[in-house]
């Protein structure tokens, strides 16, 4: 894989329409008319000096401490699926979900899928300096194939990243459609772990519709931003949806107490 400048969109796969910000990939009818490309090339990406990875590597808590807590075999067989969500925007869910997926892929040497479901405010592609291109939004709309949307990260061949794609408003029930099921099945076929970076729970309650696609929820809160009431409400919603909460991640913690008080980390 050749390293590409940050702002340069990836070249289209050979024999395929150009992907990127000006092309949304072949539509459904087109795919019916045209044969499926053989061995499609994923969006190439080989740089590790991107903000997301730099941030993850800079913090031991992100690079080393988080992923072991998520190692778990699904008792029903099949991949273990985690949903990362938060009460509100700006909590750092994408960073944390990415760190978890990266840690699992790097250390377990098993296939891990990281899918960004927040199409309203996509960030993963820019964090990875992967440029614009189709993503989960297009998958849900049926206007792109997974192979076109996949992002590989450096030499981590076990990690497959699916960014949100083009920014668009999430409609109520987007995650309840049959297409979501299909997308989810595709993700599950690609590895032993699926990590969803979901929209904020209090801003898009439709996240709860992913209950059947996930085994556990990881709640992310941000220090001095998230309120107690918001967290309690999230826990209440998740519990009402009969979803298991794997745990809590406290992000952007900055102690104003001496002697390490208040920090259990």
């Amino acid at each position, binding site marked *: 894989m050749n390293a590409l400048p940050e702002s340069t969109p990836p070249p289209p796969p050979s024999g395929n329409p150009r992907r990127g910000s000006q092309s949304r990939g072949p539509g459904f009818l087109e795919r019916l008319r045209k044969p499926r490309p053989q061995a499609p090339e994923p969006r190439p990406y080989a740089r590790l000096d991107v*903000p*997301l990875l*730099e*941030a993850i590597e*800079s*913090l031991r*808590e*992100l690079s080393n*401490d*988080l992923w072991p*807590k*998520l190692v778990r075999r699904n008792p029903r067989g099949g991949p273990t699926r985690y949903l990362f969500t938060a009460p509100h925007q*700006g909590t*750092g869910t994408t*960073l*944390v979900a990415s760190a978890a997926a990266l840690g699992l892929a790097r250390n377990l040497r098993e296939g891990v899928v990281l899918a960004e479901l927040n199409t309203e405010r*996509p*960030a993963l592609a*820019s*964090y990875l300096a992967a440029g614009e291109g189709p993503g989960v939004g297009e998958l849900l709309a049926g206007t792109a194939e997974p192979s076109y949307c996949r992002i590989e990260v450096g030499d981590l061949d076990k990690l497959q990243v699916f960014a949100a794609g083009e920014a668009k408003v999430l409609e109520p029930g987007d995650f309840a459609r049959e297409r979501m099921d299909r997308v989810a099945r595709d993700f599950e076929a690609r590895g032993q772990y699926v990590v969803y970076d979901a929209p904020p729970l209090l801003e898009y309650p439709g996240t709860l519709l992913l209950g059947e696609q996930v085994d556990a929820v*990881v*709640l992310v*809160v*941000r*220090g*001095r*931003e*998230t*309120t*107690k*009431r918001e*967290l*309690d409400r999230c*826990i209440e919603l998740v519990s009402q949806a009969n979803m298991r*909460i*794997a*745990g*809590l*991640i*406290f*992000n*952007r*913690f*900055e*102690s*104003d*107490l*001496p*002697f390490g*008080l*208040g*920090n*259990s*980390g």
Partner: protein
Amino acid sequence: MDNQQRDELSRDERKALSELQETILFGVARYWASILFCAGIGLTLGVYLAASKPNTYVSQAKLLLRLGEREQITPEAIVGAGPRRESTPTMEDEIHLLTNVAVFQRVVADYPDGPVALMKPADPLRHDGDGSNVSLHVRLMHELQAYLIASMNLEEGMAQLSEADRILAATEVLRQDTAVFNETGSNVISVLHTSTSPEKAQDVCSRLVDAFLERHREQFSVDIEPMLAKLDERRRAAVSAQSELDRFVTENRLLNFDLELEEKLRALVELETDHATAEREFRALEAEKPKTQEAIRSSSISSDALAAARERLALLDGLIAAADVRRTSLDEEITRRRLELEELKGLEPRLRELASAAGEAEAEFRAMDATLRDLRALAALDLEGKSNLSVLQAPDLPIEKTGPKRLKLVVLGLGAGMALGTTAAVLRQAFERRLRYPTSVQRTTGLELLAVIPESAEVRRLQRVRSYI
């Protein structure tokens, strides 16, 4: 309650206690600067209060109360209308009497230089002249006190009031600065007065003691002049009652009423006895006559007996007549004597009534006379200035100051500041809405804390990338 419920309750209690401890600890740790600031404010306030208050001195006096005759006398007892008080006045009664506001008003009204002089604190700089050994910080403290006293403008403020209002204001201050009490079971009354100089404390205490003694004398002094007229009236009543009794006795010749009544009763009884005897004799003689006549007519009687019987028969008529006369006269005498007796008995109620009235009037007079004799003796003591309330210990000149407790004020100020700061910190922490500490979140939610990600420059850079988008 079963074990599970008990365990849950215990867990909830522990959780609540743990939360409280955490709130307090985190609040103090987080807002320690504010707490220190409040403590500093409190300390400053304490130092100011300690420095601004002038020294106070307490002069103490003791009075001894011996409750005696005068304290037990009531108007009813003087006029003999009732017994003396069964319960003597108590120490509490005496203290109520002495601490009446009028007593304090009198002290204020008689104070030299007026009520304002009584209220005004002593000059703190009076001993700070050249050559004194007063240290610099003490001198500065006195300067501050003098400044504050001058800024109060007491004279100007009081000048705007009427004389009566000035006295009232000074009276209130005097009452606040004075304590009058006795210990349970003791007849000693303690009088304590607090002032801003030893001399003034002693002087005011002395004036108070004099006022208390005077008040006690006023309350229990004996004035017999109004009683003399009453005594004279009693005397005249007794004399009048006796005169009426004498007149009744004289008019009805009842000098020895009881003796006379007894004699008449005895004579009547004798007459009735004689009458009964005469009656029996008469009946016997009357019964003998037919029997004698029967005997005379009898054929079996002898001649001697017959002669005797005829003789007897001749006598019987005379005897019967004589017996009848005596019987009749006795009967008349008895009737007369009974009438006399009835008349005498009819006078008895009135006699008794007059005798009783005369006796009562005499008794009242004598009782009142005896009381007044005692009162004359007590009045003589009053004239000599002797009272049952006396000075046991004269007001002393206090050498050591009793206040203010400067160290205590400073410590209290500091403590209050810290308490206020701590309370504000804990409250602020308790009402904190946002999540700040992972331990708190873990404890309140019960969820496992998978990771605690600290704030870092790289994360902030990532945020800027997001913002740029």
